[in-house]
């Protein structure tokens, strides 16, 4: 049966996985051909990119080798914000069949677009990712990534459907119902954020459901950093083999890279996403096995080609052979970030967003600090705000009102529940250099 063929050790026999095993010279040929094509396309259709090349006296024809990519300018998150909503599109709207968006610090989202071919490429890498962890036709996949503007839900959905699995499009939330359906539908695969799954383990325990008695065998966890000890916890409390999936909506969504059965780094689907590691301070490209900032170029995207995008993720790329046989390079699991963004419940948050909300309510920016904790597997965010003479009220109602207003403003900006705690002046440490806005007490 097809499932047996597909469900080999390393997804080797799945038809879609063939590009994972290309001989390196062939892979590089494919990359170069696609690089030239995407640079051409971006130059012709994307004003910002053309302007930057013209400033450097560069033309697409100057890109003759993969090394020549270093001559091209970087793209940063601000470029997507500044061109909101459609300024980086290379295809006319009639050809764009999907829009997604993620949160931006100024309250305006970052918009990404897909043509039909872009969706096919995205689904294609998701299939390869799912094949790499042993998912196959016949698996029952509980997709608890959020459906909607977030790329996680629909990305996983189309990939699982394409591989022939049975998809439960349950999206996030309502943990008790998740556990009930997981049990009743006999889910064999779960897709969600790792911290949500840990929360689910704890809730299942409270409900008297033993996850080890369920046929759940694969977990595909992403959208936030997670540690080896979290992985072990998941293994200890279920029969799941947990896999790390990586992606970002600016590039396509989930499916940019995926762990194989070796659990020794994530293979980047570099026939579609060309990776580089740079020194974040100088922009110089660093050699393999050196830590630096991950930069990605979308080799195949039509609607919104992105050239040399600085991800702000710090990692190392290695081309040492992997036991799975894939020739795709691997990067080590992402830990630190090079800016002050943090991730809570799978959502990217910049302290600047919190500042905007506080400023909106008070008119001036009070001293504040964000405390992150994890209770029963769920991330909690507390924003401590120093009371100032201007906002102090002598009535409890007045202060509670203030607290409520601050909470509402922050929640509307971030779309997650937060607690605001009013504190006395000088509670929050002042610093000489960059203010320590975030205290992360979660043991990752």
């Amino acid at each position, binding site marked *: 049966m097809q499932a047996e063929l597909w469900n080999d050790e390393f997804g080797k026999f799945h038809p879609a996985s063939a590009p994972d095993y290309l001989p390196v010279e062939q892979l590089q040929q494919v990359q170069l051909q696609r690089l030239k094509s995407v640079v051409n396309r971006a130059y012709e259709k994307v004003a910002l990119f053309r302007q930057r090349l013209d400033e450097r006296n560069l033309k697409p024809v100057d890109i003759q080798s993969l090394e020549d990519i270093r001559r091209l300018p970087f793209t940063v998150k601000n470029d997507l914000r500044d061109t909101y909503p459609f300024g980086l599109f290379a295809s006319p709207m009639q050809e764009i069949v999907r829009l997604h968006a993620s949160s931006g610090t100024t309250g305006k989202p970052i918009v990404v677009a897909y043509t039909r071919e872009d969706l096919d490429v995205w689904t294609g890498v998701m299939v390869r990712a799912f094949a790499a962890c042993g998912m196959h036709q016949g698996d029952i996949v509980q997709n608890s990534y959020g459906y909607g503007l977030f790329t996680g839900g629909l990305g996983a959905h189309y990939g699982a459907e394409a591989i022939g699995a049975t998809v439960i499009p349950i999206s996030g939330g309502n943990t008790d119902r998740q556990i009930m359906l997981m049990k009743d539908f006999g889910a064999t695969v779960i897709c969600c954020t790792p911290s949500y799954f840990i929360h689910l383990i704890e809730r299942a325990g409270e409900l008297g459901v033993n996850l080890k008695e369920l046929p759940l065998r694969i977990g595909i966890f992403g959208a936030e950093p997670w540690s080896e000890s979290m992985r072990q916890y998941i293994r200890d409390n279920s029969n799941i083999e947990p896999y790390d999936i990586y992606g970002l909506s600016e590039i396509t969504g989930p499916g940019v890279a995926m762990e194989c059965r070796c659990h020794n780094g994530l293979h980047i689907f570099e026939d579609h996403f060309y990776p580089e590691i740079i020194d974040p301070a100088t922009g110089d490209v660093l050699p393999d096995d050196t830590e630096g900032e991950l930069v990605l170029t979308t080799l195949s995207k039509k609607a919104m080609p992105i050239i040399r995008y600085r991800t702000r993720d710090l990692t190392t790329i290695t081309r040492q052979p992997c036991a799975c046989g894939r020739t795709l390079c691997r990067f080590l699991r992402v830990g630190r970030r090079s800016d002050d963004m943090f991730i809570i419940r799978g959502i990217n948050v910049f302290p600047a967003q919190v500042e905007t909300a506080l400023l909106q309510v008070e008119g001036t920016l009070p001293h504040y600090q964000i405390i992150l904790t994890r209770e029963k597997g769920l991330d909690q965010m507390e924003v401590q705000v120093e009371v100032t003479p201007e906002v102090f009220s*002598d009535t*409890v109602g007045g*202060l509670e009102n203030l607290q409520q207003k601050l909470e509402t403003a922050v929640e509307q900006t971030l779309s997650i529940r937060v607690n605001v705690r009013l504190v*006395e002046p000088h509670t929050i440490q002042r610093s000489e250099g960059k203010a320590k806005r975030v205290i992360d007490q979660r043991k990752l």
Partner: protein
Amino acid sequence: MKLNQISVFLENKPGQLKLACQRLAEANINILTLSLADTKQFGILHIITPEWERAQVVFKQSGFIASVNEVLAVEVADRPGGLVEILEAIEKAGLNVEYMYAFTFGNKGKAALIFRFDNPDAAINGLKASGINIIDKVELFARAEK
């Protein structure tokens, strides 16, 4: 008519109330009466003292947030029904009370209640119309000294 009351923001952590009172004691400021309103996360300490101006400076220098609000000291007969009369007058005048607390001083027959109205001027008129006595601050402090 109107009395100046100091309100201080206190986080709900051990020792904050004591610290605030300690600062006043060190400055030789006498608290005539106080009230503490509290929630799970913070408290608001209300203090009546003749030296409220100095108290405000002391609190500010000690890093506390303190504000000054006008309150009224309303005389109430120290017998059953005394408080009800006051509350009926308040209701009749359509006044809004933010909070209230007792002013304790050993004077048989008459007691005082501190009222924080959201509109103290309207309160003065309203209470007077019902024959309620508002204790002027000089009188109040004199009574307290006894």
